[in-house]
């Protein structure tokens, strides 16, 4: 047998037994990734809340008002003074431990600004916020991919430059301003869409079509504010991939242009897109906060502002914890997705 053929046979027989080993190795690294993040999460939450309690204690911030809310205004002087003394003795660490003790037994405390249990507030608002963010992502990601790939495969052309300049300007536009411009144009000047809220005042229950009509502007504005990041990263990656040796080689082999663009130029751009999806998650929450406030959307984010303005500590702490959890889990999802898009990742560090 010729040595070359022998080599080939050898390679094939080598590959076979190791083939099932591969996914196992990847599985292990995925498990390590998930485990690492899930271990990081409690540490992160503990650290953030501890910092919050410490800040609340050292700040010009009345613990009695924080504990009682507006009831503190109607109490008489001596009672207030004695309470203040009692609360002042409790250290931030003790308050923090007590708060976590309550949270772990399922008691998130009561919101002083909304006069309801924090858990109930979160439960009724969470769906609105998640729906808004999911709809915006579903709109912004495909649009960013299309726009970025379209501009990226035409580097240096007028179309590329116009799209690039437009995206940069959009990036520089704050979401709340985009929202106000949208309200002015579509709701006030032309009267096509409602100015805010999630349901009409006349409706006693949420009608799907009515909610949809109310959601058009908030979702579009949130999507528009996130779009430039996705589109620009896809455009740059596509352009870089086009200049790479893979494209040159494919071109030399006579592979059709359409296929080159799809497989060698746009496909590699999915990787940075997934990365930027994870990295931009905190900014998506930022955008959601601003959009919800502009459009009086009944989600969690607008409750953040309300609770901050009224020093509603219980609600503020719960929302901080919740949004941290969302960001960490979202980042984890992005990292897992990255492994799906790019099979090399799991193997390299597995």
């Amino acid at each position, binding site marked *: 047998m010729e040595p070359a053929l022998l080599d080939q046979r050898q390679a094939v027989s080598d590959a076979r037994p190791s083939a099932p080993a591969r996914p196992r190795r990847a599985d292990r690294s995925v498990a390590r990734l998930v485990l690492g993040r899930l271990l990081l999460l409690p540490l992160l939450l503990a650290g953030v809340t501890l910092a919050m309690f410490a*800040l609340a204690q050292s700040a010009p911030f009345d613990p009695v008002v924080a504990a009682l809310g507006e009831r503190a205004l109607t109490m008489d002087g001596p009672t207030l003074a004695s309470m203040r003394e009692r609360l002042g003795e409790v250290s931030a660490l003790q308050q923090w431990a007590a708060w976590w003790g309550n949270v772990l037994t399922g008691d998130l405390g009561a919101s002083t600004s909304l006069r309801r249990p924090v858990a109930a507030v979160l439960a009724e608002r969470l769906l609105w916020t998640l729906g808004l963010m999911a709809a915006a992502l579903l709109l912004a990601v495909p649009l960013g991919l299309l726009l970025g790939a379209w501009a990226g495969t035409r*580097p240096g052309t007028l179309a590329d430059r116009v799209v690039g300049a437009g995206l940069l300007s959009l990036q*520089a536009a704050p979401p709340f301003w985009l929202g106000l411009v949208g309200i002015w144009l579509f709701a006030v000047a032309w009267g096509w869409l409602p100015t805010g809220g999630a349901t009409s005042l006349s409706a006693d229950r949420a009608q799907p079509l009515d909610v949809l009509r109310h959601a058009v502007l908030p979702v579009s504005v949130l999507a528009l504010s996130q779009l430039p990041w996705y589109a620009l990263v896809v455009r740059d990656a596509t352009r870089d991939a086009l200049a790479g040796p893979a494209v040159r080689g494919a071109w030399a082999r006579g592979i059709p242009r359409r296929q*080159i663009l799809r497989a060698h130029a746009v496909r590699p751009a999915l990787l940075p897109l997934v990365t930027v999806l994870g990295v931009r998650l*905190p900014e998506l929450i930022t955008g959601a906060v601003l959009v919800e406030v502009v459009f009086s959307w009944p989600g969690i984010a607008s409750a953040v502002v309300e609770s*901050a303005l009224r020093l509603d500590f219980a609600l*503020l702490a719960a929302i901080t914890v919740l949004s*941290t959890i969302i960001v960490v889990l979202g980042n984890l999802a992005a990292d897992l997705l990255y492994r799906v898009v790019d099979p090399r990742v799991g193997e390299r560090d597995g």
Partner: protein
Amino acid sequence: MAEEWRAVRDAHARPWMGRGEKGRTAGRGMPIPRRSPGATNRAAGGKVFGAAGAWWLLCLVGVLTAVLLLGGGGPAQTADFTRSWLPPSPGHPFGTDHAGRDLLERTLAGARVSLLVGLAAAGTSSAIGLLVGGLAGSVAHRAGGWLDSVLMRLVDAVNALPHLVLGIVIVALLGPSLTSVVISVALTHWTTTARIVRAEMLALTGAGFVEAAVGAGASRWWVLSRHLLGHVLARALLATVLMVPHAIMHESALSFLGLGLQDDRASLGTIIEQSRSAVLAGHWWPAVLPGLVLVLLSLAVYWVAERLRPVSVGRS
């Protein structure tokens, strides 16, 4: 370096390049970029100090300085409710607000406050980042390597936090003021600089001239102060400039939410916040025009940063 040059040379030798070396479309519409990104950057780097580039840069910096120094320098405007909600006109190019104050003047004053807060917040966050990144970079691969990992995990942790929510918490607890806005932006945004500074220091530690200096018997302090500091500072400066628009955005968002700067020190965000109800009444100018100025301000700073990038990278 050699690779970049090879790419430039190959770009001229590509047989499918069609019309000249334009690089726009090649052959039957196959788009190939003209040069490698590095080559483009270098070309832009030459342009910064070329006549046209320097002129534009001076112009822009001049405008920004003028906004900083002159904007809103006049006496506080008195309210005149007979002149409220006047649409834009030659006398009031930006119209007037609910109290009849000229919005152009208020917008310029607001832009100045926004820019000041942005610069202060970006400067503070870069200082923290420089400190943390420098510390991590100088102990990595040495006896104190554990400190490096601790600091970098801290960077990861801060990055994993929702910035605006945390900013809201900080401002709410410290009370709304210019200082608390600066603190809240700085505390949530120092990580980028820290990462850049650390990476730059690690890259430089392996660079030839540093190894040569160490081989020649230079002390650690000498290497740090004579060889590393300049390069690292150039990178940190670029990161700071890039941070300014982001800081401005955060400040205006906090002010828009009613948590940041109040009316006595109105920033662009405050002005837009006060115009929310006006928009519903059909008065578009108090929200739209100051917002446009905010967009232009951010774009201008981005633009400066883009011009600075080749300079700072080229030096390294």
